């Protein structure tokens, strides 16, 4: 108790600093995955991608990041074990942040595509199970989270498969693919706009102090969807298409329409990524702040302090602004034969899956979901070539991340405990 009262401010500043750096890292590195498909299929330039990412990552983190933050903050650990020793929970959360941050830096250095989410969840389980007692972990909750890591890529792959097939049926495999593209693409935009706004309204806005009832929520979501579709339609009509394009290249014009659609799905992807991944940086921080502000009392229901979500959001945007350009530039090259119609199917499926998971508070991995979606399009014979070897490496690096994050956080936990005990 004394420790929290004496060092409370310092603990918050430490946690905030580490959390900010973590958010910064997410912005610098992970965003490349979220925006890579758009840049890779040449639907967006790097500059456009950065601008979209900055706006929508921030919006996603701020407006829809609350649920997952709560899960990270107090869903994984049973805080009743810490009632008499709240400082242990504070140390643990700070060690988790440090562990996940260092693991991510290390993995990035080696070029492993590890998941931020897996690192932080592993780290929190680690310090609680070993540093305190294994009873303090909500194992049923953990099972649910880890289970979602297997289920979400499958779901997103399935959705991507369906979206791709529907685009084939409605647009590509018809007599007039170009006319049909102009007709149906706005509907896809509306669908994307609807899902994003509905999840935000139903799950996110309460965290920023707005409460909207059910039917109004649906109405607003439908209205947003219609606005998005009309705006999309307007943009599509304004684009200059090559009227000379003969039969041989008629799909080139169709892809131009999909490139417009991809701007919308890129926004969704950035939004979804922000909503799910901001929690990895600020969830532990939220826990620390709530304990310190309550003078050591752990309350499960405490509201998020107002400055936490924006801090994470700003961190992500700062990382993006400083390093995003370089990271996205490297990935923009080298993707061949990823046309906007495929990128859109993968992105829309992944974004939908992630944002729904965010709404239910599940911390899932954006990258993993995206890989699942890409495989889904691949199964539909939509992508020229996929490296199964790389997919295997990705899966392995995910499996390694849990114990690595756990191990590091245990070490940091004992170190911090030792420092304050002296």
């Amino acid at each position, binding site marked *: 108790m004394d420790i929290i009262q004496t060092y409370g401010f310092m603990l918050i500043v430490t946690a905030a600093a580490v959390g900010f750096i973590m958010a910064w890292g997410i912005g610098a*590195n992970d965003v*490349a*995955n979220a925006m*890579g*498909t758009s840049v*890779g299929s040449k639907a967006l330039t790097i500059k456009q991608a950065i601008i979209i990412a900055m706006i929508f990552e921030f919006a996603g983190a701020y407006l829809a990041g609350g649920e997952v933050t709560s899960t990270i903050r107090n869903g994984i650990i049973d805080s009743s074990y810490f009632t008499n020793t709240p400082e242990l929970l504070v140390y643990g959360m700070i060690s988790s942040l440090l562990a996940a941050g260092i693991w991510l830096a290390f*993995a*990035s*250095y*080696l*070029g*492993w*595509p*590890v998941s931020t989410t897996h690192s932080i969840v592993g780290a929190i389980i680690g310090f609680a199970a070993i540093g305190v007692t294994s009873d303090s972990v909500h194992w049923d909750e953990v099972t649910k989270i880890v289970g979602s890591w297997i289920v979400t890529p499958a779901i997103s792959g399935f959705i991507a498969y369906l979206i*791709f*097939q529907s685009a*084939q049926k409605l647009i*590509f*495999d*018809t*007599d007039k693919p170009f006319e049909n593209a102009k007709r149906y693409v706005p509907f896809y935009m509306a669908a994307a706009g609807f899902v994003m706004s509905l999840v935000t309204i139903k799950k996110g806005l309460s965290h920023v102090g707005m409460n909207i009832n059910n039917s109004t929520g649906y109405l607003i979501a439908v209205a947003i969807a219609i606005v998005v579709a009309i705006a999309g339609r307007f943009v599509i009509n304004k684009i200059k298409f090559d009227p000379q394009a003969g039969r*041989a290249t008629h*799909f080139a014009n*169709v*892809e131009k329409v999909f490139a417009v659609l991809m701007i919308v799905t890129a926004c969704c992807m950035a939004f979804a990524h922000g909503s799910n991944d901001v929690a990895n940086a600020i969830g532990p921080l939220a826990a620390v702040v709530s304990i310190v502000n309550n003078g050591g009392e752990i309350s499960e229901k405490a509201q998020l302090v107002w400055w936490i979500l924006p801090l994470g959001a700003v961190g992500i945007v700062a990382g993006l602004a400083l*390093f995003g350009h*370089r*990271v996205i530039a*490297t*990935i923009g090259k*080298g*993707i*061949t*034969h*990823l*046309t906007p*119609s495929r990128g859109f199917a993968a992105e829309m499926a992944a974004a939908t899956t992630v944002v729904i998971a965010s709404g239910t508070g599940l911390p899932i991995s954006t*990258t993993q979901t*995206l*890989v699942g979606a*890409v495989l889904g399009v*691949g199964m*539909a*014979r*939509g*992508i*020229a*070539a*996929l*490296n*199964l*070897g*790389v*997919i*295997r490496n*990705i899966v392995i690096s995910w499996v390694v991340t849990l114990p690595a994050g756990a191990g590091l956080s245990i070490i940091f936990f004992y170190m911090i405990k030792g420092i304050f005990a002296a």
Partner: protein
Amino acid sequence: MPMNSFLGVFAKSPLKPLEDHINLVHQCSQGLLPFFEAVYAEDWKTAQEQQQAISKLEKQADVIKRELRINLPSGIFMPIQRQDVLDLLTQQDKIANKAKDISGRILGRQLTIPEQLQVQFLEYLQRCLDATEQAKQVINELDDLLETGFKGREVKLVEDMIERLDSIEDDTDRLQIGLRRSLLSIEKNLNPVDVMFLYSIIEWVGELADISERVGSRLELMLAN
């Protein structure tokens, strides 16, 4: 900046190189037209230049072939079978090899086409080159096949193109028979060794169409699964 992006899952597409390859191969076989023009005129200096041009294109095609093979590791997931792609590539490459062999042998022996056969031979050669042209068109549909997920209308369209390729090849068979018959009627007046080589040249030119047809049927097999 270390790369921990998931975008490594996108492997290099084999379709574009396949198209590049057939385009080169086709250009290479087209070189036979100016080559034979020079042969007809018995202008061996020009013929040699043309032969070198053919040989150079054949080498370029080989480079693409090698690159494509290296970029197609076994752990690759494609909408078409990896083995089919490799087989298709092998067939395509044979067209260029054949064009090089034909021009090389004619030049090496300074073999002339007897005047009575020249018109008929040119028609035959042209038809065989039509077959390689058609094979090129077919392979260049791979882009659109990918766009449509290898099914539906586009597949039907390609199948029709392959059918046309088959009928061109039938034509060349017919022309070949006529050409052999004409050669038979005049062979007594010619140098016997030259006659033997002429027969083999006629056969090789016909193989240009045969291999082109095989390119088409490989692609058909790809579409079937």
